[in-house]
């Protein structure tokens, strides 16, 4: 096994040989890396009849709304309490290290509130369209679900502040914390354009203000071109009603753009001829640069990726065959390629994109590799169909400095030690 190089692809014969060696208990196993079970003693999990094979299990309606296995109890959203002053204006993180594929389960989608989770009776929810329109209108949820042009689309929603705590250096230990302000679900809704056309936007209407019904009455100004292009007014995620924490009964979907603009509990859309300069686009969600000036209206989330396994919450368990797994996404379009490095960016291997690679959606990549127990510096580098290549953190800091808080899409490095444990680091 000592000749195995990180990043080398393994063929089937080699995989079987390695598995055989491991099965015979061969090879030196480092501390923390689990030894393979010896093949000479019968496995009690095979030769003894377990309870679940003997006794009847629960009936079909034991959980009218199913929940994950109790063995998955640790796969939950988490918050970092020191980040914010209150839990009602705060964020929780998606456990990316434990997920696979591209769809985030509804109950694990990260949550960002500014005034807590509004609990809204859908029968009492209204959507108002007004301002520079020919006909100001009010819609009920019943009206909205009867609108023509219903659409299903998978999109990532990434908080503008995702990885924001990492601008000054490696800080939080786990991709749940460094990259977990993101989720990717299939939305069902109707184009925002349909509502704007129903109301009749006047020629001077160049911006719109979207507002939520929660206690922060969240507002953002959005250019009319985006609103007419691909924004959705959505009531369902992954086939069921939006979760309350995701804006039940109605939210705005703003594909590829920073999560702050995806107004939850959407109740009002006003058309105007200029942006409103709201708190969430002046004090917040503006990006301070080194010269003391700030970018505003940095809407698009650039191409980004992270290796979710191995990572600090998901160490390597054994030498030999292993899988680097990760996610990539771009607000500018479709992910076309992801490269993986196991030596801190010296050498790169193009990973395998597996499953749907949809525009402005999370995309899954894998790199099968053989680990001989040496230290690794694992990185991933995403590319999208505009030709944008995910930059290093150093390249980003060279342009922006370290105080812009938002839009940190720099390449992440995990140090994997010889015992398999991983740590968030930065490298030269």
């Amino acid at each position, binding site marked *: 096994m000592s000749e195995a190089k990180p990043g080398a692809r393994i063929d089937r014969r080699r995989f079987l040989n390695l598995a055989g060696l491991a099965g015979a208990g061969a090879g030196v196993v480092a501390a923390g890396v689990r030894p393979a079970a010896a093949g000479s003693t019968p496995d009690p999990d095979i030769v003894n009849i377990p309870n679940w094979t003997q006794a009847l299990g629960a009936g079909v309606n034991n959980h009218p709304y199913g929940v994950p296995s109790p063995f998955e109890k640790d796969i939950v959203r988490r918050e970092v309490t020191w980040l914010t002053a209150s839990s009602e204006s705060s964020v929780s993180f998606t*456990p990316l290290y434990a997920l696979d594929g591209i769809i985030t389960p509804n109950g694990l989608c990260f949550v960002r509130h500014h005034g807590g989770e509004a609990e809204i009776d859908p029968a009492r929810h209204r959507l108002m369209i007004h301002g520079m329109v020919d006909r100001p209108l*009010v819609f009920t949820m019943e009206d909205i679900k009867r609108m023509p042009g219903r659409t299903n689309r998978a999109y990532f929603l990434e908080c503008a502040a995702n990885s924001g705590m990492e601008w000054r250096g490696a800080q939080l230990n786990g991709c749940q914390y460094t990259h977990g302000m993101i989720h990717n679900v299939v939305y069902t809704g109707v184009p925002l354009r349909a509502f704007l056309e129903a109301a009749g936007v006047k020629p001077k209407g160049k911006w719109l203000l979207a507002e939520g019904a929660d206690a922060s009455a969240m507002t953002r100004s959005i250019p009319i071109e985006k609103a007419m292009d691909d924004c959705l007014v959505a009531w369902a995620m992954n086939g069921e009603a939006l979760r309350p924490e995701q804006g039940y009964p109605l939210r705005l979907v703003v594909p590829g753009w920073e999560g702050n603009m995806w107004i939850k509990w959407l109740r009002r859309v006003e058309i105007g001829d200029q942006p409103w300069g709201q708190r969430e686009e002046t004090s917040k969600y503006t990006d301070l640069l080194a010269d003391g000036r700030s970018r505003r209206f940095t809407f698009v989330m650039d191409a980004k990726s992270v290796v979710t396994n191995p990572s600090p919450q998901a160490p390597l368990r054994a030498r030999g065959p292993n899988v680097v797994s990760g996610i990539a996404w771009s607000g500018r379009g479709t992910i076309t390629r992801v490269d993986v490095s196991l030596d801190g960016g010296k050498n790169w291997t193009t990973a395998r994109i597996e499953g749907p690679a949809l525009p402005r959606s999370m995309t899954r990549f894998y790199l099968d590799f053989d680990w001989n127990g040496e230290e690794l510096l694992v990185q991933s580098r995403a590319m999208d169909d505009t030709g944008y290549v995910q930059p290093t953190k150093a390249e980003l800091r060279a342009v922006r400095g370290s105080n812009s808080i938002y839009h940190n899409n720099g390449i992440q490095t995990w140090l994997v030690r010889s015992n398999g444990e991983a740590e968030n680091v930065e490298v030269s």
Partner: protein
Amino acid sequence: MSRSARLGFVAATLFAACAAGLGAASADTIRLGRPALPEEIKAWDIDVRPDGMGLPEGKGSVAQGEELFQNNCAMCHGEFGEGVGRWPVLAGGQGTLKSERPEKTIGSFWPYASTVYDYVHRAMPFGAAQTLQPDEVYAIVAYLLYLNDVVPEDYVLSKENFPKVELPNQGKFYDDDRETTEKAFWKKNPCMKDCKGKVEITNHAAILDVTPDEAGEEGDKPAGAVE
């Protein structure tokens, strides 16, 4: 709304659409929803723009604002807007935006006074949003402007003089320019082999050790670690 009233609305909308000759909007779309009444728009349309659009009638002085602030705001934001604990600092920080640790407040960072009015009225006090009357919001904004050295102690803020108020950092924002200033990130052929010399670790998260731990978990593994 009763069924007949609802049908009445639908008919009225259709009639209005036809009368105006708006053939472009599809009839299917217009048959859903109903006209928003002026009272309804007034109830929800509380936003205020930098040009003053949306400001209600009213006024308030720094002195009135100080009293209101001490009673409604100071428990989180401090008597002088200096912030209590982790709660936001509202005043001070001028001249810190290029420093290692910028302090971004209304006076040092915010571009528009209109945002202060709009946000205080819309979302503050935290936990009792939209409980302040227009005169009270004018007074609190006046006090905040005073704390940030934007207006004198005897200032009375009103709908009329509001557009004259300018915050120090107003001119320091510009539209997203990533496609020009970061054009180097669009690369045709990124390096694949021997891209750099010696790779050294420059920074460890474990040294900071601020990641939540799972109580009772072995060692100091980050919360949620797969076992």
